[in-house]
């Protein structure tokens, strides 16, 4: 547990030292967005999640994501999760800590239509791989390529996201918290998201933070027949220099083999902008 907290602290400190930049526009909590950092801009994002499964088993996840703008509309991101599992055998058992697989993604924005002062429609495609950096059963031994696309639309106070991603599993997948396991089957992530800006009703000349209520439908489907569908409500506070996100993930349908079923997950996230 101390290791996790120390690494989380290191993540926040690294975040503070690495950045000298801004962050992207409103993003959902648990799915990609067609947002992209400006050239030579580094964006950090730290999220902590707690997963609660049946029979009092649980998992803590600390995720550090760095996104960097290479040129206009082209960015690269690195995402490193860290886990501490409280599972019964045969999984990583009580208090076992491990790194997850490092995810490296290149994203190319292929659509940007700005219709008005606020209204915009953006689309991006991305490709990358999960690299075998996992330890203690929280990763795999293979490089797993992935590709996908995401569409983001913001119309006044309403924001929409839709994303699809396919991961080709070459050996064993990265650890998948919602399945509390890895899988040797290819899998797809399909996500839909909606955000409503409930404050301010209308922007003005003042630099006030904006509050959003978000609702996502996150799903994962493996070619071996396992799946889970999660309903994810949340709240996002976004200011010019920081963003805070809090949310839940509630399973509404799942088919998981030989693994504890997820009951609920909670997350809190922070983005700092200097």
């Amino acid at each position, binding site marked *: 547990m101390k290791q996790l907290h120390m690494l989380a602290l290191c993540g926040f400190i690294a975040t503070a030292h690495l950045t000298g930049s801004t962050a*992207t526009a409103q993003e959902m909590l648990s799915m990609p967005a067609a947002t992209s950092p400006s050239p030579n801009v580094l964006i950090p994002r730290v999220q902590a999640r707690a997963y609660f499964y049946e029979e009092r088993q649980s998992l803590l996840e600390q995720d550090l994501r760095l996104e960097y703008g290479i040129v206009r509309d082209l960015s690269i991101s690195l995402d490193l999760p860290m886990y501490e599992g409280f599972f019964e055998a045969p999984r990583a058992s009580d208090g076992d800590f491990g790194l997850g697989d490092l995810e490296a993604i290149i994203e190319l924005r292929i659509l940007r239509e700005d219709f008005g*002062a606020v209204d915009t429609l953006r689309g991006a495609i991305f490709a990358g791989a999960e690299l075998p950096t996992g330890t203690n059963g929280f990763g795999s031994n293979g490089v797993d390529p992935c590709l996908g696309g995401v569409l983001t639309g913001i119309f006044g*106070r309403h924001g929409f996201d839709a994303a699809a991603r396919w991961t080709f599993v070459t050996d064993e997948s990265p650890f998948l918290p919602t399945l509390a396991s890895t899988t040797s089957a290819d899998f797809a992530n399909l996500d839909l998201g909606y955000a409503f800006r409930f404050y301010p009703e209308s922007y003005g000349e003042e630099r006030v933070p904006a509050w959003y209520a978000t609702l996502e*439908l996150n799903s994962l489907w*493996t*070619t071996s027949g396992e799946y889970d569908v999660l309903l994810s409500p949340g709240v996002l506070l976004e200011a010019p220099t920081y963003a805070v996100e809090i949310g839940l993930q509630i399973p509404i349908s799942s088919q998981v083999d030989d693994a504890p079923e997820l009951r609920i997950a909670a997350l809190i996230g922070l983005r700092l902008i200097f």
Partner: protein
Amino acid sequence: MPLLTSARSVRVAAQYAAAASCIVTALLTACASQPATREATPDNITAHLGAVHSAPTLTPGHYALVVFGMSCPKCISNVDLQLGRIAGIVNPKVDMKHGIVTIEVPGPAEPSRDAIFRAILDAGFTLREIRTLSAAGRTQ
């Protein structure tokens, strides 16, 4: 067995996709039926501003950049950062409601119009036009 489970998985996925598309359609319809958002009124944004500035450089004075697509508070930081990289521009102020960024060009450096267009594009937005608010020696 894997084929059977895959078929079930695909069937369930199709059901959820259908349900999700219904929800998205309903939401989009609801949004489309709303009156135009207060922020998104491009036709009257520029009515009270000065003339369109079309010269290749900006001489000392105050200018309004009409910018589309700034949809969240962090957009302000993006615009600040990118405009801050251009020599000769100071004190940018963002009015998100109307999509207007006012800037001051104190001189003697005269930033180019192209550099400003590129900066706004790099920030992730669209610069529709530059309007002159006041130039040295005159006010509009």
